[in-house]
């Protein structure tokens, strides 16, 4: 912690991660990770399952704290912030959950209006206009009276996106936005991410596996494995990079740096073919 909790914001980098080390249940998730997320760009974070991509997003929002190192968002050291400062920061961050996380008790309109009602005392007319604008942006203004249970996966994700942008955040974090979408819905979401980034200048961070989809939106890709960045660059550089990591993670080879076998004891011994077996 060389700097104070509130450092001057960097005008090129929105999120700056330095020396982040996290150990969860005895397993090292991040090992002195350094990572920068530039302002106004779409950054994708890729990597094999279980490498802590979602955990990384949680560090950025302060839901989890690392064991060492620091995470700065707009100059603020997230892990050192008091609770209300953290909440104030979160109001400026949109987060799109993998399963949309819409509140099941409320209809679509109320879901999108929820942050507004919680944090502002705006008149009902204004809330209505803001919500309808955001719903229009994701193409679901007509779905306002529906309940979350009546939505398809793609629609639910678009509603969640409308909710995430209702405060016009400076940063949106997308946790696996493409999982379980049909090609049409996938392209709709892709288009939205791109549009939001271009028209509003919102910095976007994407966690995803789908290289083809990411190629269309991302300006920069980080490839994380074993708690470190193993490759980075723009989509074309990454795709043509011949390292074993990129080949396996992006090409989907079954065996490689990520082993097919989960770590286990000696096979023959486990089957009782060797002496000393129980």
């Amino acid at each position, binding site marked *: 912690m060389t700097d104070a909790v509130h450092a001057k914001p960097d005008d090129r980098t929105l999120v700056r991660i330095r020396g982040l080390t996290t150990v969860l249940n005895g397993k090292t998730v991040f090992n002195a990770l350094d990572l920068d997320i530039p302002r106004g760009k779409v950054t994708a974070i890729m990597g094999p399952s279980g490498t802590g991509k979602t955990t990384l997003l949680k560090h950025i*929002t302060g839901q989890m704290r690392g064991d060492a190192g620091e995470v700065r968002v707009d100059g603020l050291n997230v892990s050192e912030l008091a609770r209300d400062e953290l*909440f*104030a920061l*979160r*109001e400026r961050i949109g987060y799109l*959950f993998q399963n949309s*996380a819409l*509140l*099941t008790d409320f209809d679509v309109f109320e879901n999108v209006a929820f*942050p507004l009602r919680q944090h502002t005392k705006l008149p009902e007319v204004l809330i209505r206009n803001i919500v309808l604008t955001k719903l229009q942006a994701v193409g679901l203004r007509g779905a306002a009276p529906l309940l979350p249970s009546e939505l398809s996966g793609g629609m639910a994700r678009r509603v969640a996106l409308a909710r995430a942008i209702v405060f016009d955040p400076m940063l949106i974090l997308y946790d696996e936005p493409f999982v379980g979408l049909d090609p049409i819905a996938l392209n709709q979401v892709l288009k939205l991410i791109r549009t939001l980034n271009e028209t509003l200048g919102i910095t976007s961070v994407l966690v995803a596996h789908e290289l083809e989809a990411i190629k269309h939106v991302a300006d920069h890709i980080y490839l994380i494995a074993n708690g470190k960045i193993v490759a980075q660059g723009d989509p074309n550089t990454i795709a043509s990079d011949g390292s074993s990591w990129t080949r396996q993670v992006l090409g989907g080879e079954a065996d490689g740096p990520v082993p097919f076998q989960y770590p286990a004891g000696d096979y023959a011994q486990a089957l009782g073919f060797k002496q000393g077996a129980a």
Partner: protein
Amino acid sequence: MNTRVDHGNSVTQSLAQIGACGLFLLRILAAIPLSLRHVRETVRQLWFVGAMSLTIIMVCGLFVGMVLGLQLYHVLAIFGGTSASGSVVALAIYRELGPVVTALLFAGRAGTSMTAEIGLMRATDQIAAMEMMAVDPIAYVATPRFLAGLIAMPLLCCVFCAMGIFGGHLVGVNWLGVDNGTFWSNMTSSVDVWQDVINGVIWKSTAFGAVVSLIAVFQGYTTPPTSEGVAYATTRTVVASSIAILSLDFVLTAFLM
């Protein structure tokens, strides 16, 4: 599975649960000022845990009163004391059956639904989403439900008792022919407002309401966010609430009487 190893044997595990539950209560109470901003949510929960439980409470209250009237009539008839049935029905309901049965029903009806609802909210990341929208989930989810349970229980218990008296009257007076005036006058002369209605009905049921909703919210909030976890948590809510209600009943009876 391997997390279970860390928790040690079942005794320390339950102690840890009780401790965690106590700390959770402090968090809930600390969030009360914050949750005043969500009064509407408390009202909504009051509707779900209170108003929606009315039917079962009323029906059960009626039948408990009726069966009490029937049983007591036959026992009292042996001693020629059927005129006392009004007071015995009232005292039995106010002092024990009302608060305890209401609390058990409340745990089964409202407690489980609270646990399941919160558990599912965790499983579908709704709690995390609230955190991300800078809404304190304790203040928005846990505290309103706790307060709703705290408010609803004594009200439900009053309704239960009133229905019980009505049921006892129905069987005793209308069916078995105890004199109407005797029934009421015996009741009014033996029931004391402070001892029976306030101490017996109100304080006991408020305490039970607090315990049941604390357990329900705690179980929902701390359960592993999987469908199995929610199922287990729901079961644990009923088991833990029942044990807590009956043991607390003994302690309260010893102190309040």
